[in-house]
């Protein structure tokens, strides 16, 4: 069984609780005084067992504990979910098992427990290496605390990644490259570097709307992005996705499942899934977002699915392109042909393809359609252009 095969699938486990809500965050995260860990453990396992039969593939390549703040889970909960997974599928040592962690001392104290439960990779939300920036981001840890947490992580896990948020108000290319060098000194094999996004519904959105702060515009953001790409490539962690950088071979297997538009099962509140049935049809699943309701439903029905919809072929193609072009590797011709029955050349208006290639935004080889680094930097517009130039499906051409 190969990990790149299109039958690869991932398991996502959503832990919805955080100690406090960060002002930029629009994830399904909740601050709750008390969590009955035993009850949650049972419910998670229950939902996993209910949904597992819906997965057609046996090729589990990754398990990911995300959030929220999964480092607030009890290691026993992680262990039980993993042992339930082992009952369902074969989980060899090559299966990537990641847990997202916040870099506070409390959580770092649990790292050994997570490792013993089976976790073999951690991703830490460091966010910044500057105390003022951390304060601005509403984080409840300092830079030195975060650095210490990364060091403990290195001691416990062979695979460590951490996240930083850049393009913060007033941040210059010089500031950022300095912070990046510091980060590289601390980093292992993988770094996620996100430009700060003002998400609707967040506290930052409201403040930003009324002019409380300004973030770099697309010009400045572009310069920061370019500087990031160059610095990381030079350090041997080139970007394999828009915001993700890794030593070759150390890419996050789990996130590749998303970007390669492979199947995944999502359990826990607000988790999404994409499952292909034996007939080759892809379905989208989503569970209830509110923790209390989710719990209630799982206890009652064995799962908390609130949405289940077929993804029609056009939508699926959009997803394949939208996700796949984020990757340096692009989307394979084979995949496109499998989704549509058409060649790349037939799928899109040729003049648009010529223009996009001419402008250096995309690249079409014998095997793949991919966005170039400069195309990835403008992917929203490139995608819009490609989708507009889409000639499929058309009554005229379809036989």
């Amino acid at each position, binding site marked *: 069984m190969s990990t790149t095969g299109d039958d690869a699938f991932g398991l996502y486990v959503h832990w919805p609780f955080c100690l406090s809500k960060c002002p930029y965050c629009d994830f399904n995260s909740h601050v709750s005084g008390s969590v009955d860990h035993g009850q949650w453990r049972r419910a998670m396992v229950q939902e996993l067992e209910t949904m597992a039969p819906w997965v057609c593939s046996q090729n589990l390549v990754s398990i990911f504990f995300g959030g929220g703040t999964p480092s607030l889970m009890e290691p026993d909960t992680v262990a039980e979910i993993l042992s339930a997974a082992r009952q369902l599928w074969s989980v060899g040592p090559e299966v990537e098992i990641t847990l997202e962690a916040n870099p506070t001392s409390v959580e770092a104290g649990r790292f050994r427990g997570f490792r013993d439960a089976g976790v073999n990779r951690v991703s830490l939300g460091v966010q910044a290496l500057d105390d003022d920036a951390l304060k601005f981001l509403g984080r409840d840890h300092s830079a030195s605390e975060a650095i210490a947490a990364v060091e403990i992580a290195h001691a416990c896990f062979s695979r460590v990644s951490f996240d930083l948020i850049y393009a913060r108000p007033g941040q210059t290319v010089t500031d950022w490259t300095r912070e990046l060098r510091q980060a590289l000194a601390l980093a292992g094999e993988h770094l996620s570097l996100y*430009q700060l*996004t003002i998400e609707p519904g967040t506290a930052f959105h409201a403040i930003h709307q009324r002019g409380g702060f300004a973030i770099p515009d697309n010009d400045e953001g572009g310069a920061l992005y370019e500087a990031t790409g160059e610095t990381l490539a030079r350090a041997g962690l080139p970007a394999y996705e828009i915001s993700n950088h890794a030593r070759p071979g150390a890419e996050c297997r789990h996130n590749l499942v998303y970007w390669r538009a492979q199947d995944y099962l999502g359990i826990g509140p607000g988790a999404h899934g994409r499952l292909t049935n034996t007939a080759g049809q892809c379905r989208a699943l989503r569970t209830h977002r509110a923790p209390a309701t989710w719990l209630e439903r799982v206890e009652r029905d064995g799962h908390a699915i609130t949405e289940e919809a077929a993804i029609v072929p056009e939508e699926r193609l959009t997803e394949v392109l939208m996700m796949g072009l984020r990757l340096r590797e692009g989307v394979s011709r084979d995949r496109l042909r499998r989704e549509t029955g058409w060649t790349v050349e037939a799928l899109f208006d040729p003049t648009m393809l010529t*223009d996009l290639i001419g402008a250096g935004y995309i690249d079409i080889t014998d095997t793949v359609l991919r966005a170039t680094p400069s195309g990835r930097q403008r992917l929203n517009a*490139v995608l819009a252009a490609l989708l507009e130039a889409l000639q499929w499906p058309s009554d005229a051409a379809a036989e």
Partner: protein
Amino acid sequence: MPDGPYVPGKFARRPALPMTDLSHIRNFSIIAHIDHGKSTLADRLIQYCGGLADRDMKEQVLDTMDIERERGITIKAQAVRLNYIADDGETYELNLMDTPGHVDFAYEVSRSLAACEGSLLVVDASQGVEAQTLANVYQAIDANHEIIPVLNKVDLPAAEPDRVRAQIEEVIGLDASDAVEISAKTGLNIKEVLEALVTRLPAPKGDPDAPLKALLVDSWYDSYLGVMTLVRVYDGTIKKGQRVRMMQTGAVHPIDRVGVFTPKLTEAKELGPGAIGFVTAAIKTVADCRVGDTLTDDRKPTAQALVGFKPSVPVVFSGLFPVDAADYEHLRDSLNKLRLNDASFSFEAESSAALGFGFRCGFLGLLHLEIIQERLEREFDLDLITTAPSVVYRVKMNSGETKELHNPSDMPDVVRIASIEEPWITATIFVPDDYLGPILSLCTDRRGEQVELTYVGSRAMVVYRLPLNEVVFDFYDRLKSISRGYASFDYQIDEYREGDLVRMSLLVNAEPVDALSMIVHASQAEPRGRALCGRLKDLIPRQLFKIPIQAAIGGKVIARETISAMRKDVTAKCYGGDISRKRKLLDKQKKGKKKMRQFGRVDIPQSAFIEALKMGDA
């Protein structure tokens, strides 16, 4: 007064008024430069004569349209009949006509003058003679008016009545020794004005027994009464039930009502010689009433029609397009409704590749354009895009045919054109001499030819011949900004002249944008082209591809700019949970594009057009 509150257009409950003896009638227009206080003086005269009770009084009570009140200007001339008991103990009927001061509405002034024997020339004593003072007083002199100069605003510390009196004599050549010094604001010397009207203006002449001969001065649409016409009776009488013939159109209508404005709408038994009042009849549209036409009795017609006056002609043309294409029909209905009240603008359907379906409209000037546009937006709740105003060109074809060109995009192929003529104006500018230098260079810049330059104290009066297209471009804004608002300006169209005119097209991504093409003088093409390209460069958001913006004459590019490609446009994080939402966003974005006008690969948002088309500083 026993009747109810003053509501413009509503009838007062009062007995119908009797006819006044000719010798006791005085008809006069109040004329002045903008803002010199005509409407405020009308307020005082109305108040003094008891036309309105104090509780019904407000400032510039005759400016009834919302837009007039908001902008503090008069757009529409208004007639009011007042009764004044003079020092001689007799009661006089005074027919007052308040007129607009702005040059675009000079036509309103000329109609009012035609209905009167005399004028009150109001001059702001703190400002002195200005461009429209001169233009309007000359019109009054041409109309053989007796003119009473009035020095207004003497309450202001800056008022210099003596200097202004001298100025009137020097510049206009009018005896100002008897000019009345007033304050329309405080009411100072209003009685003196009334006495001057009675003693100095001639009574109208006319024969009540002769066949009816009345001048159709104005017409408008009233939502209660339908089409109303304002008339000035010269001979005979006009009354309810009478069958009246409009001599130019030949149409015959039985009269429903006659009456006057006091300023309340008040029915009268009849209107006799010298009277100014309204009549209503079952007339369907204002367009059926030609202002300047003569009304006569159908059974006993007069032999000789009145001279009348020429209809106003639109001189500035511009395209009006609904922002939302679905509003096209609504725009048409609204234009039709507005035209019921204002026959001086014209419209015809036009279509543009850039802006869709709309109307090419003709206006009396830029203010008129602005007012119509604003009324459409406000009274009819429309969002409009207005294209750059243009004048009417005469294109002489090789075939000998002459075409009137209202729209630059209709310009025929140059190889078929023998020559193009453009309208020229005579412009009179009053300006404090501190600003004279820059104003003269502005005029020269805009292809002006100096006709006259005289000084009146520290002010200069400059007369220039200028091409009208330069004036509609941005001349007036520049004039005001150069002189910090102190220059005043009036113009008259005088002739068409051949010019080295070319059509400049604007190309976005090599595709012409019809709504942005313009006719310019060859000497101005390059700087204008550069300015417009520069403006568009700032207005069109950066896109995926770089976009050339070019100004071209025929196939020759005379200016170009390039909008460079956007530097970054990408979503930072996109994981399993984001997929459905982001896919839907992409679909929505695809639909949103429909709101943009596409030029090849380029989406130009509506707002960029609106900005680019803002008149003035392109």
